[in-house]
């Protein structure tokens, strides 16, 4: 029991302070660099080599700024909102398996049997921070941002939830570790035919899976308030939306929350569609085949394997985050009615039909 507590604590501290928080601050830096490169600029390159210490400078700047509370705000909720904005994204990561095993300890903080439901439940709490910020600011632009955010999140949660149902139809369990296990055995969901090239059923399955992935990815974009769906904070129309009245560390918390949500969303996407921590390596040991590397091997090879799995997972997450940024700096923002129409009349239906297609394939799939 004590052993369980200590390893859990180590995992929480490790994943939060060693991985997630640095990743958040460096994804801000990466966002600025990527946007600069896309626009033929240099981006921040002054602090440290290639600007790598920029997040630290940013942190000091934000900490040292005057923490200003406007007069007519509802003070208690005004202070509560930034805290609520960060929390959901960070506690969602608890159920995501970020590695196989290390020293025999499974690399997931809480392996619960309602994994994906937990993710959706906590993600749906993310709206409170934004809505409260908009309401407590007692100012019209933040308020509009808050109201937009609440309706947007409710609308896209539907397609988000429906888009992943095909996966769980196949896996037969809501546990995220079993999703990864299934993908190791049957191929990643984004391309289930890999490794089983001759099986026409797998090729057939790939069509609804890609559809499901597209709907899921777009819904994640909308859930994390990223462009092209960043209407709650549209700088040009709403002057920053819900965080207009915030300054200093409270503003930083909103920023942190947004990027943490992006990282969490990417992690879930990787887990559901890109095989999680799984990356087969070619092996010539006894004829060519794809070898599974994980932490189950004895001795130092197990440790290396476990570390390799963790590195693989976060490398995949980094790639997905890059795609997030790439899309942000390419596409313009949707109009609000377009956003709602897209969510309700398009993705909702696609996701629904997709479930039936996958159910049909499973019913006739020769196992």
């Amino acid at each position, binding site marked *: 029991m004590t052993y369980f507590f200590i390893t859990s604590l180590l995992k929480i501290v490790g994943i939060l302070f060693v991985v997630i928080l640095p990743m958040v601050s460096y994804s801000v830096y990466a966002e600025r660099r990527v946007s600069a490169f896309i626009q033929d600029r240099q981006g921040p390159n002054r602090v440290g080599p290639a600007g790598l210490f920029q997040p630290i400078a940013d942190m000091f700047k934000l900490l040292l700024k005057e923490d200003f509370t406007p007069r007519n705000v509802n003070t208690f*909720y005004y202070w509560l909102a930034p805290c609520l904005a960060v929390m959901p994204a960070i506690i969602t990561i608890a159920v995501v398996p970020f590695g196989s095993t290390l020293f025999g300890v499974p690399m997931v903080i809480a392996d619960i049997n309602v994994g994906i*439901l937990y993710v959706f*439940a906590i993600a*749906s*709490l993310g709206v409170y921070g934004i809505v409260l910020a908009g309401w407590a600011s007692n100012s019209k632009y933040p308020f509009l941002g*808050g*109201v937009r955010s*609440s*309706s947007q999140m409710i609308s896209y949660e539907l397609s988000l939830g429906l888009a992943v149902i095909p996966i769980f139809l196949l896996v037969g369990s809501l546990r995220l570790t079993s999703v990864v296990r299934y993908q190791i055995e049957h191929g990643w969901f984004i391309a289930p035919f890999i490794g089983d090239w001759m099986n026409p059923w797998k090729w057939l399955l790939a069509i609804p899976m890609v559809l499901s992935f597209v709907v899921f990815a777009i819904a994640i974009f909308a859930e994390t308030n990223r462009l092209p769906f960043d209407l709650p904070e549209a700088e040009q129309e709403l002057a920053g939306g819900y965080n207009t009245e915030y300054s200093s560390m409270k503003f930083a918390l909103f920023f942190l929350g947004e990027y943490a949500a992006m990282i969490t969303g990417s992690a879930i996407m990787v887990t559901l569609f890109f095989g999680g921590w799984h990356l087969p390596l070619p092996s010539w040991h006894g004829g060519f085949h794809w070898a599974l590397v994980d932490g189950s091997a004895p001795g130092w090879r197990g440790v290396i394997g476990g570390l390799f799995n963790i590195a693989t997972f976060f490398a995949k997450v980094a790639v997905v985050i890059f795609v997030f940024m790439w899309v942000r700096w390419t596409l313009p923002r949707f109009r609000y009615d377009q956003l709602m129409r897209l969510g309700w009349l398009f993705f909702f239906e696609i996701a629904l039909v997709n479930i039936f297609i996958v159910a049909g394939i499973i019913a006739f799939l020769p196992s």
Partner: protein
Amino acid sequence: MSPFLFWIFALLMLVFGAAVVINRNPVASALSLVVSFLGLAALFMSLDAYFIGIIQVLVYAGAVMVLFLFIIMLLDLRAEEERRINWVASVGGIAVALILLIQILLVIGHFKAARQTFPPLAGSTIDDVRNVGALLFSNYNLPFQIIGVLVLVATIGVVLLSRRDPR
């Protein structure tokens, strides 16, 4: 679950549940209700009902309360002004609630089975999503579909009710 955690979450739920009734500001009430529901979800989990607990968070905290907040903000309901408290009605209301509470407690006190502690389960981890789902789609298939129709009717009703122009 240890008694300590049980009492923490029960207290959290009850204190914030009382805050729902006491608060003058509707937004404060709604947020207290969210916290209360989170405590309730934790109690569900302590009863090994993970699925119900998560559904509780997902439906109540995630959707219903957001709807409440949305409506409160849409109608711009501010804190109620101080009205003269109608003492007779208030004391009467509290008295009725207290009597009900005492009745409930008396019934529980006379209920023999209430003194049993947690009976052991088959395994340390049970897949309750699968079990609830299997039951839902086999024994309770018809009620499930009726509920679906009910939700559809509710949706249509809400759309009709909230249209600005009823014609």
